[in-house]
């Protein structure tokens, strides 16, 4: 009795699913072709043996035996050479510092933007996204003119007789951090704003009604409820600044070795593609593994719904 009915239903579900699968499938296909495949190519390069100039296949067949050769020496070298280890650490450190500063500046900014009168918000949003109208490269480059020994800041300070010698700001951790914060701040502000503007303000009233001071209300209600915005913003800042190449190249110095720079050198200065691939794979893993654990954890706890 039930069979024709359920059959019809599943047939309907199939056609229904078709449209859905297509819509979901297109971006997945895009990611597969342009991310997964290149990544696998890079992964293969990092573990392949070379005969001087050519990379050898991982699988080879000779005398009735299938040989699988995986060369781990690049990775072993990566783990033992202090240059790489330190560069990874330094990348994590600068990306972390950048994320924290962006959060410290971006959170209050997003908060007041979300709490400002609704008719003023589009203008404020516009201001946040305004820098994107100019090329990223040019904007980073412009900091050179501001921070140089002969730059605007030093000249003004000397002219005001506050200093006599120019302060060395360019090619230091300071100049690079400023550049990173400047470039990545909007990526922190936008998700935070999107989260905070949706927040149910009655929850803040409820907290105050129950005896929480405004400061307690902020830490006990606003911050926990904006957790998803904080995480999204932090990811958007931390991950790309980890592999950042342009800013360390233009504004950084010898003390600010970043993995993006090392990667470039391996590929284009040393022409050691195998080593460069190993560096790239390690970097992706370094970011992906914590991310995967994090999302797994969120899936388990269900996260915070409704906010």
């Amino acid at each position, binding site marked *: 009795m039930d069979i024709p009915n359920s059959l019809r239903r599943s047939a309907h579900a199939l056609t229904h699913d078709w449209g859905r699968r297509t819509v979901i499938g297109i971006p997945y296909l895009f990611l597969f072709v342009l991310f997964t495949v290149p990544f696998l190519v890079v992964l293969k390069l990092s573990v392949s043996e070379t005969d001087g100039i050519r990379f050898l296949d991982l699988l080879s067949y000779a005398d009735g035996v299938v040989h699988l050769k995986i060369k781990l020496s690049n990775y072993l070298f990566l783990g033992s050479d202090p240059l790489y280890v330190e560069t990874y650490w330094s990348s994590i450190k600068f990306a972390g510092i950048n994320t924290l500063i962006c959060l410290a500046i971006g959170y209050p900014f997003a908060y007041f933007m979300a709490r400002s009168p609704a008719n003023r918000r589009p203008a404020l949003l516009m201001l946040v996204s305004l820098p994107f109208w100019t090329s990223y490269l040019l904007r980073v480059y412009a900091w050179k003119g501001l921070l140089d020994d002969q730059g605007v800041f030093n000249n003004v300070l000397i002219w005001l007789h506050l200093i006599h010698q120019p302060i060395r700001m360019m090619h230091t951790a300071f100049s690079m951090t400023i550049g990173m914060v400047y470039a990545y701040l909007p990526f922190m502000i936008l998700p935070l704003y999107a989260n905070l503007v949706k927040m*149910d303000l*009655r*929850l803040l*009233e*409820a*907290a*105050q*009604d*129950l*005896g*929480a*001071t405004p400061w*307690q209300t902020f830490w*006990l*209600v606003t911050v*926990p*409820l904006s*957790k998803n915005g904080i995480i999204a913003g932090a990811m958007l800042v931390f991950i790309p600044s980890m592999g950042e190449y342009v800013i360390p190249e233009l504004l950084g110095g010898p003390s600010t070795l970043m993995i993006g720079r090392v990667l470039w050198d391996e590929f284009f200065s040393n022409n050691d593609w195998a080593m460069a691939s190993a560096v790239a794979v390690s970097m992706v893993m370094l970011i992906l593994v914590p991310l995967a654990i994090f999302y797994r954890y969120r899936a388990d706890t269900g996260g*915070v*719904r*409704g*906010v």
Partner: protein
Amino acid sequence: MPQTNQALLGEGEAAHRDIAGRTGDGSFVRIDRLTKRFDEVAAVDGVSIDIRKGEIFALLGSSGCGKSTLLRMLAGFETPTAGSIQLEGAEISPLPPYERPINMMFQSYALFPHLTVFENVAFGLKRDRMSRDRIAETVEAMLNIVQLKPYAKRKPHQLSGGQQQRVALARCLAKRPKLLLLDEPLGALDRKLREQTQFELHNIIKKVGVTCVLVTHDQEEAITMADRIAVMSNGRFLQVGQPHEIYETPNCRFVADFIGNVNLFDGTIEAVAPDHCVVATNGGRLTVGHGITGGPGMAVSVALRPEKIELSREPPADRASNCFSGRIADSGYFGRYSVYRVTLAGGMKLQVAITHSERNGDLFVSGEEVYATCQPESLVVLGA
């Protein structure tokens, strides 16, 4: 029981109680000429009221009448433009919300979605720097009262609407507030649940003994829950009284019309006696069973509730009652009762509600000639 009319009657029990419902001393919350203006528009306009300890006081009105603004001023979320709010004789209007011994149950509850039921109820207690053990004890006791102890570890989104409402109530009551504020407490529940919750909520509040101000636009909710009701319109109180006073003795057309269904006759006074008066109306001459302060010629309205009218096919023997003849225009069957609309001789439509006290009771049909009668005591004269 003789009906008295506060607006028109000079003597009797209404005389020593002004519109503010002041009852002399012993007031717990005293609101005095409280005003709140938003851009020159008065949302609350010089309201004065005394609320007794342990009383459930309802603010009833349609949306935009100022009831929520008044409640938010009590909670501390709005600053009064003028006037004062005293709690046990102490002025509280300058205090921020978190320093007032007042807790509010928000419309749609405003439970913290990131905290469990237990943590939600404990939130206010933690602010009081209570010890861990005492907090656990108090929260458990509160959850027992609202019968949600097994749900302590759940998050709000895992609860039904009725359960969320009880968590919200427990969260307010946990702080042992001197004054409990309820903002449309049943507004987010569906009809069946409302009726059940109405009584539950009333019982819990009475058991705890907390003084309570509740805001609602639902007259039924106000009537069943409150000890006293203030009907609000345009930022002012139109009438303050016990539910039966508001229902049976409305003091103006607005109140009569807002609470329940009512037939309103327009007319002029013909004769006035100490215990009754006669009004010539568009529905005929009516004898009203209470005296009034006005004199003949004064324009008034006469209110008559649909359930206070009887219908019959024969003319009534009792000539003392008011009697209209008419024709059934249409009818509606509601199970418990039927509502008929009777077109009177003068063209006016009279709404009549007849309770079905018998299972196979007689139903009137459209087009039937009927006589509608009501006792003089059922009528109330209102200012026109």
